[in-house]
């Protein structure tokens, strides 16, 4: 209804003075979500295809392979899209321009390649790779300029879900001016030649032995992988987490805060690490999953079962204030993706039956159903640049 009102207003402002009309039109356009979203759609996994939807018009364009396509990730400049697709009995990373052109598949050493993540400068992709469907997962970095794949993390296997660190301020701030153990060599954390953007990943690493395996947060460079708990930091900064299972690590847009989830506390919660220490910011007896930072780094959207089913909420990390965005007692809402201006959140919901992509503003108002089809629509990812 609000969208219809805005459209009527747009018609009205055209009759005003040109300059005034232009300003009002710009303001009104800001009241509607726009830009483009990547997502995957299919009747089942076999025909799941990467697609791009124009948020304003609803026009959908298929840009994928249509074979188990998943986890679409935009390049930082929004010019290209990477996603995984099933080929040759494994999963490969496919890259395509935003307009669907110049599609190419990376030449992989390993058979199973998943979860591509663009480096902040857009020159590299990091992803998880393995020869078999086992836990011997490695982190691989593909450099577009050379076309080469390089294993990261040294000899460490059992590394999953890499994410690039967009800023290294926190990593220095954790223990400023002090030396820490870093692999075989003693490396100064504030050595800029070592820890610089584009040379550090965060990842989930397996810890322990089979039968008591768990997960931990790792810093990963080309040569080394080191659990944050192995940095030798005071307990109040990084608590010993060996008996807990961490997942979904997410550095803030500036890198000054690291969000992650852990089952520390009896159920799964969202925690943040800052230079003041580690804090549980969603403390609730129901599970909280998958933190996603707003573009300005002020808010974290996350999934929570505090309403019964899976819903989307946001939390202000500085105060741990939690506000609902999209939650319902009889349906699930998941996979939030912030618009580049932080005003809108795209997500998946099965409130109409099968999973569809919806958009709402960050306060949970002005809900719009973006897709309405018989496919299952998953994993929306807002294009970083463009109108929104």
């Amino acid at each position, binding site marked *: 209804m609000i969208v219809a009102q805005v459209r009527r207003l747009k018609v009205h402002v055209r009759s005003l003075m040109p300059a005034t009309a232009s300003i009002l039109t710009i303001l009104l356009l800001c009241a509607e979500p726009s830009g483009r979203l990547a997502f995957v759609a299919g009747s089942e996994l076999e025909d799941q295809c990467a697609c791009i939807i124009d948020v304003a018009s609803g026009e959908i364009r298929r840009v994928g392979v249509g074979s188990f396509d998943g986890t679409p990730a935009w390049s930082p400049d929004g010019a290209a899209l990477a996603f995984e697709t099933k080929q040759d009995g494994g999963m490969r990373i496919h890259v395509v321009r935003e307009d669907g052109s110049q599609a190419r598949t990376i030449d992989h050493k390993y058979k199973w390649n998943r979860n591509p993540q663009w480096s902040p400068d857009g020159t590299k992709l990091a992803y998880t790779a393995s020869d078999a*469907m086992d836990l011997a997962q490695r982190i691989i970095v593909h450099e577009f300029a050379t076309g080469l794949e390089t294993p990261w993390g040294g000899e460490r296997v059992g590394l999953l879900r890499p994410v690039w660190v967009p800023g290294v301020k926190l990593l220095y701030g954790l223990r400023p001016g002090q030396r820490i153990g870093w692999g075989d060599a003693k490396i100064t954390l504030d050595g800029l030649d070592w820890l610089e953007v584009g040379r550090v990943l965060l990842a989930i690493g397996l810890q322990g032995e089979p*039968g008591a395996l768990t997960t931990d947060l790792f810093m990963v460079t080309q040569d080394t992988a080191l659990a944050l708990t192995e940095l030798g930091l005071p307990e109040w900064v990084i608590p010993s987490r060996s008996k807990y299972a961490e997942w979904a690590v997410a550095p803030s847009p500036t890198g000054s805060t690291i969000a992650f989830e852990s089952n520390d506390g009896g159920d799964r919660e969202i925690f943040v690490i800052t230079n003041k220490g580690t804090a549980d910011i969603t403390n609730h007896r129901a599970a909280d999953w998958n933190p996603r930072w707003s573009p300005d780094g002020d808010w974290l959207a996350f999934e929570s079962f505090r309403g019964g089913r899976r819903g989307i909420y946001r939390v202000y990390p500085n105060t741990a204030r939690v506000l609902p965005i999209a939650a319902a007692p009889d349906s699930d809402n998941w996979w939030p993706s912030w618009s580049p201006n932080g005003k809108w959140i795209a997500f998946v919901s099965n409130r109409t039956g099968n999973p569809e992509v919806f958009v709402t503003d960050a306060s949970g108002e002005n809900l719009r159903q973006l897709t309405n089809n018989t496919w299952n629509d998953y994993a929306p990812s807002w294009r970083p640049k463009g109108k929104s």
Partner: protein
Amino acid sequence: MAAEGEIMKRPLAGLLLISAAALARQQDGTLDVIVTPNSGVPVILLPGQSFDVVLTRRADLHLANDGPGPALAVEWYDMPGDRVQARCVMDPDAEPGEYALEAVVDSGVDRNPRAVYIRRAYPDYYLVAHVTDPHIGSARHVRDASDIFRDVIAATNESKAAFALITGDLTQDGTPEQLQEFLRIMDGCTLPTFVCPGNHDRAALNYEQFFGPLAYMFCFGQDGYIAFDTKDYLPADELGAQDADLEVFRRDIKAARWSIGFTHRYEAIMGMRSQIVLFLDNPLDHLIFGHWHRANDDTEEAVPWGTTPITVTPAAVDGMMRLFDVSAQGVKPRPPQRVAALE
């Protein structure tokens, strides 16, 4: 949905007698008005307890066996999409036994046989029969896979188990014809039968059309059971709705004496979110599956994440099944049994 020439009379709204055709499911074996419970996803309960029915539209609901069954008090709820839910409260004086659930609509009666089982009480100790990988339609042995499966079901009937878990690869190719054949043989089982899909069953959406949900939970007395799907779990990791279902199911059976998962297949790199839910945050007490066509050995006793022990049962298509003793002492697998000849 009507079977030609099969006419039954059912009371409608307590006033009218209508003539309607009745059939178990649709003529091709797929689900009709009633989605769950069905013969692969039944309910087991005591008199006076309630159960949920998922339907494609509202209907007059009845239980029946040889004659009319116990009365149901029904409350209706809307569900997302084209489904409705009926919360049915069983008559406190209901007679124990096996019942069909019937939904009377204008066009006739949809009848799901073997959908509701009423018990007098839940025992502290009971047996569970595990049957997996019957691969109906395959030609692996001299003897027909259907004949082998009939013998396995006959052995299940004689086992005195409280119910049977049939964990996937029900068919060789997942075709409607093979699923129909599986259904015909499974309906010879005198126990409640809980099924889940295997990788061989997932051609198009045929499995869903025959049995409905890929993941569900049920309670038997103090114990909770979760069925889940592991087909193509690697590329499907975290995209869909199953992870949330598992979190809700796991929470719902948190207070259970024993929590038991059953699925077709387990690999250590299956959907990581599912594993966090089932093996790290609130570890299941036992995981039962098939797929390997062999039993697990001493080196394969548990999931790598924690303490959840696994039991793998050899394939029914190879004439095998297994019983579990479930008691206050735990969930204890017996050795696999050969119950059908292959030639």
